[in-house]
């Protein structure tokens, strides 16, 4: 009896409230999955099919055979991967400089990268459109990669700086005593050690670029239409085919959900390191 009371108490004060919050968090997602498995006719007449016997995959078949969704996923993949490459490549050396050197203007430059992240996207979207039009880059992958890089570069500089700060400077110094140059120390010592941090940062950039919508809508077009824009165009003029739409939502969300679950612990530690200490 004395053992059951604390258990019961724990269930009432902890497990039940947590279960409620978890339901709130994943309920809409599960509802989308259920809707995507319901045949269209049934959806209009009776509603979402809750029992597995009524589930069909016809919405997914239609999605892949009748729409250009595969192509759109491909575009999203190109844009997101391109953004990862650009974002990481440009920020590795910058993060190394912030982490290992004390120089004039360091604070100002670091602040600059922080402030960029706070600029309203709506402030940049119009001039970027004008710029891409002038350069003839509208409706290309390059335009979307450049636009996404405005978010990815500052983010990546901050994350990589924080990861590199975690690698003792004695290691670089030891390498340089052994005859390595400064940049040699970066490539041979620091990069291999902050590899996990780079993977986490890269995955987060990938997720952000994959999920991005406004730039893709404004700077993309018929040739380069990403998954997010394509989903919105699936909405018909007069009625919405919810079965088809939710099937697209499930497929579009799947890669990022999996990546996020893989990377969340490392990402959280990187993101919160500054916030908690500072």
């Amino acid at each position, binding site marked *: 009896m004395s053992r059951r009371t604390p258990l019961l108490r724990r269930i009432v004060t*902890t497990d039940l*409230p*947590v279960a409620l*919050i*978890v339901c709130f*968090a994943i309920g809409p*997602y599960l*509802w*989308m999955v259920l809707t995507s498995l319901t045949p269209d006719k049934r959806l*209009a007449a009776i509603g*979402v099919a809750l029992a597995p016997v009524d589930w069909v995959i016809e919405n997914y078949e239609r999605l892949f055979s009748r729409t250009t969704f595969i192509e759109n996923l491909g575009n999203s993949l190109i844009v997101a991967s391109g953004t990862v490459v650009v974002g990481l*490549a*440009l*920020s590795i*050396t*910058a993060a190394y*400089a912030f982490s290992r*050197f004390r*120089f004039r203007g360091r604070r100002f*430059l670091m602040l600059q*990268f922080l402030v960029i992240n706070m*600029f*309203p*996207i*709506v*402030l*940049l*979207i*119009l001039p970027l*459109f*004008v*710029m891409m039009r002038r350069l003839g880059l509208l409706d290309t992958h390059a335009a979307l990669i*450049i*636009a996404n890089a*405005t978010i990815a*570069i500052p983010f990546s500089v901050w994350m990589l700086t924080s990861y590199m700060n975690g690698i003792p400077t004695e290691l670089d*110094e030891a390498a340089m005593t052994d005859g390595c140059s*400064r940049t040699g120390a970066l490539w041979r010592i620091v990069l291999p050690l902050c590899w996990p941090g780079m993977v986490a940062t890269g995955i987060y950039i990938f997720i952000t670029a994959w*999920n991005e*919508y*406004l730039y893709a809508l404004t700077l993309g077009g018929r040739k380069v239409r990403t*998954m*997010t824009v394509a*989903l*919105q165009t699936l909405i018909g003029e007069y009625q919405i085919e*919810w079965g088809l739409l*939710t099937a697209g*939502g499930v497929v*579009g*969300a799947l890669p*990022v*959900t999996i*990546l*996020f*679950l893989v990377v969340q612990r490392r990402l*959280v530690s990187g*993101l919160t390191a500054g*916030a*908690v200490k*500072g």
Partner: protein
Amino acid sequence: MTRRRKGGATLPYWLLSPAVVVTLFIVFVPMAEAVFLSLHDYLIWKPTSFAFVGLKNFITALGDEVFWISAWHTLIWIGLTVPAQMLLGLVTALLLNRTFPWRGLARALVIIPWALPSVITALMWRWIYDANNGVLNDILVRIGVLQSAFPWLADPDSALLSIVLTLTWQGFPFFAVMILAGLQAIPSSHYEAADIDGATTWQQFRHVTLPGIAGVLVTAGLLRLIWVANSIDVIFVMTGGGPGYATYTLPLYAFIEARTSLNFGYGSALAVMFTIILGAFIVFYLRRAGRSLEA
């Protein structure tokens, strides 16, 4: 010191130059151009009509009824969404900080709303709110709260609040994760000391937990404030600003002005004004937050 070696003084600048030069060209030049555009009459389909008009666009905005409606909605939007996200995030973090067998699973699942693309979030909730077949109406009618289905997103009185709920759903995991990290950084000795002093649960929360996570709350609050203020994709997909102007916020108004009216001059002016207001708001927030942290 090795960095005193020959050439060492310029090395950090060389290392920084790729990132700095690129951001200069893709962020700071466009930003300056936004300010430049805002001083001009510029309809993008009439390239010849590019004319300098000084502050005319800004003056027009101040007399524009939609501008004030949008500004008011932006205030409501931030004022409801950020506290709601923070409160729900705080409760979630406090619960997830306790020990129970499925804690790892719960932590992973709670984060999911944060990972989803905004477009999918918006469509998902549109479906939930749907007037004909939406599950929300279905549930509310069944338990007797509503007599008949209610058009949540088509009614001017409920549209903005409905989107606030969606954004609360999308944003609370961020707070939960940040606050959880803050909670874990509070040394358990503080709680033990409070226990010895005979502090009640509420007193412990008030005098140990809250001061311990105050820094995180301020930082996370600021990040979310900026993010929520800027976030227009969810509104754009859910209602497109409608019905009427019921869900217009300032950045959305700027975006729609440029996108549908193709009025880049006025759109840029709205965007610039929004940025200035947001900047002022951030400074105010930091002052207030800084003061309350010291107190």
